[in-house]
């Protein structure tokens, strides 16, 4: 039995050429977990720092300046502060559900980092069902939010939690429809496979290589808006809505649990951006049709050598941060939508458009 499990697990890691795969399975496992966890804790902090600074500059102020050089360690300092805070559980709260909620919200984000490719060969796992896995796991987060909203025994939390439930279910649909369209065009659900497919995708009848964002600009827009709504980012932050619901489902949370919810948001921002980079923006390619230095000979996208790999990682992170920048920009520029306007927008605009997009791409795929 254990032999079978071992072999099955080993076959996962041996699927493709990842830099985190070693001959020894045990070493591979440790390295892969460390890789995913490291990314999960470092990249969101970079994204958070970017948000602080960009928001500051857009709002005629400077953002953090004191903690670390140019305020870079502000979020680390915040994290340390949160750990020291008292962990308050309301008397009327459902203790176990209340305590488990931040973990339920946080862990799915962590798990998705296992399949996200950050460069040529720079990923922990290349699952054949990578896209399906990512979308399925990310939906689990909403459970944590609902649990937190219900277990807090607070009316504001309850309203916030229910709003989050309604919103996340409504926007899941256009998000998944947009992602499916990419899978249809690429012919694979593997995230690495989708990046490779984009490297070889030519506009029909020509020799011009383009990323999927060009034929599917509509899908990209839908995915971007739905992702912001999934993350409850302004202008879709109805579940938190600090001026109405105090802090929504997070109202009663303090200390490290509150920090876990916040990290969920920042982590979610990174992973949604990473998904968009993979699905639409050609992953680690600098420009459409331009291979990374060192990658030319192989024809594929792996084994690019140290320079090419590092460059690929840099390009991926750069694209992710560019998308984070857009999300921050939207937060700075827009007020919040109302709950019913939010739902109407999802069901009457985004879902039909996503279906149309799917139909168009499906037809085009068959014709060309």
């Amino acid at each position, binding site marked *: 039995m254990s032999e079978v499990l071992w072999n099955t697990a080993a076959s996962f890691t041996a699927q493709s050429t990842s830099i985190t795969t070693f001959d020894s399975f045990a070493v591979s496992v440790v390295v892969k977990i460390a890789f995913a966890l490291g990314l999960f804790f470092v990249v969101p902090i970079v994204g958070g720092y970017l948000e602080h600074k960009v928001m500051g500059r*857009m*709002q*005629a*102020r400077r953002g953090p300046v004191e903690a670390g050089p140019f305020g870079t360690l502000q979020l680390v300092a915040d994290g340390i502060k949160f750990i020291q805070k008292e962990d308050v559980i*309301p008397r*009327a709260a459902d203790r176990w559900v209340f305590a488990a909620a931040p973990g339920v919200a946080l862990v799915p984000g962590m798990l998705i980092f296992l399949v996200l490719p950050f460069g040529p060969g720079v990923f922990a796992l290349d699952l054949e069902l990578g896209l399906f896995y990512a979308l399925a796991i990310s939906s689990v987060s909403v459970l944590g939010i609902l649990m937190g909203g219900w277990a807090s*025994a*607070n*009316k504001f939390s*309850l*309203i916030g939690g229910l709003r989050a439930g309604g919103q996340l279910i409504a926007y899941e649909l256009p998000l998944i429809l947009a992602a499916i369209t990419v899978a249809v065009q690429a012919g694979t659900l593997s995230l690495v496979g989708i990046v490779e497919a984009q490297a070889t995708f030519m506009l029909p009848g020509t020799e011009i290589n383009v990323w999927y964002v060009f034929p599917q600009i509509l899908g990209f827009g839908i995915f971007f808006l739905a992702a912001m709504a999934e993350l409850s980012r*302004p*202008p879709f*932050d*109805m579940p938190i*809505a*600090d*001026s*109405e619901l*105090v802090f929504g489902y997070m109202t009663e949370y303090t200390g490290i649990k509150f920090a876990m919810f916040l990290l969920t948001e920042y982590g979610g921002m990174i992973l949604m951006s990473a998904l968009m980079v993979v699905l639409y923006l050609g992953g680690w390619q600098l420009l459409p049709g331009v291979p990374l230095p060192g990658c030319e000979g192989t024809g594929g996208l792996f084994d690019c050598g140290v320079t090419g790999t590092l460059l690929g990682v840099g390009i991926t992170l750069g694209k992710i941060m560019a998308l984070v920048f857009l999300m921050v920009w939207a*937060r*700075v*520029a*827009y*007020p*919040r*939508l*109302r*709950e*019913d*306007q939010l739902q109407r927008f999802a069901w009457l605009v985004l879902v039909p458009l996503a279906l149309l997009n799917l139909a168009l791409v499906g037809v085009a795929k068959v014709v060309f």
Partner: protein
Amino acid sequence: MSDLSTRERVHPGSAPGEDFHLEIVGDGDFQTADMKLSIGPAHPATHGVFRIVLEMDGERVTGARPVIGYMHRGFEKLAEHRDYRQIKALVNRHDWLSGFSNELGVALAVERMMEMEVPDRAQWIRMLLAEWNRILNHLMFIGSYAIELGAITPMFYAFREREDIQHLLESATGGRLHFTYNQVGGLKIDLPKGFLRQSTELSALIRKRVPDYHDLVLGNDIFQARTVGVGPLPPEVALSLGVTGPTLHATGVPEDSRVTEPYLKYGEIDVDVPVGENGDSFDRFYCLLARISASLDIIDQIHDHLPAGPVNTKLPKMVKAPEGATYLRTENPLGQLGYWLESDGGRTPWRLKMRTPSFSNVQAIPYLLEGVLVPDAIAVLGSVFFVVGDIDR
């Protein structure tokens, strides 16, 4: 769920929630009742200790009742034990965003009772600073209303402007919120050198920045979707409730005592009163923003008119108002401010009754909130501009 009723029994005076009849629908295990939600006294949307009890069916508000008095500081009574010259340090605290306009009201009332002639220059300077104070106040509400709708940025821009204005006012008065610059019979001191030049420059600067608010807030699609048609207040309801200021102007009634009953030198210049059409949240915000430009116009006219001369009159050692009473109303940034000053001939007023704009304006809240959604309730609450200290005194 937490049970509020225990707490209400402890403080029966502060909890009118029992007045609501929460209707129970259905039977057996499916009985449901409407939810009672207490917003405040400490809640981000009330900016101050103001409480509002909402009766809700889902997210729809079926009843609303403001609970006031958490900030009652007894200014009216305190004023009865202060010299006429000392009252101004009290009154610039009830509406802390319009300190100058408040103390102006008291100074005018005392001067009227004592039949005192105030030098022209002092009157023009009072008008100048009162208009700057009006802009200062409106900027605050422009920022805070945007925050209530979830847009955080306008607050920072508004505070950048406020900082500049406060710097200007500080150079003349020494204060940033509580100016204490008016005196019975004039002003504390004359304007410092270079004040007019700075004031002119600042007026031009702010005039240049006002379009930013039009673009960033008023012209924003989501802002319009959130505010147009939300919480409409008919003019007759507004008038019957005693609503004044931008909230009244939004309904299309241009009642403004600077025009209808000019005090100081308002009669000698053009005062533009921007009005709305529908009296909804959007119009209320529009009036607020338009009043900034209108005040800048007034400020520019004052710059041209400002005469030379003394700024105060010599007061007797004992300032005593003759026996009698007067009611003086001024157009404060938030609406009509009235002071009923009654004297028995002594050193202190026998009675100082305040008619504050915020107190009258919040009377419209129960009318406005009935039947709206919670997010709309916040959009309405924020657009009936009030200062909690001005409600409770």
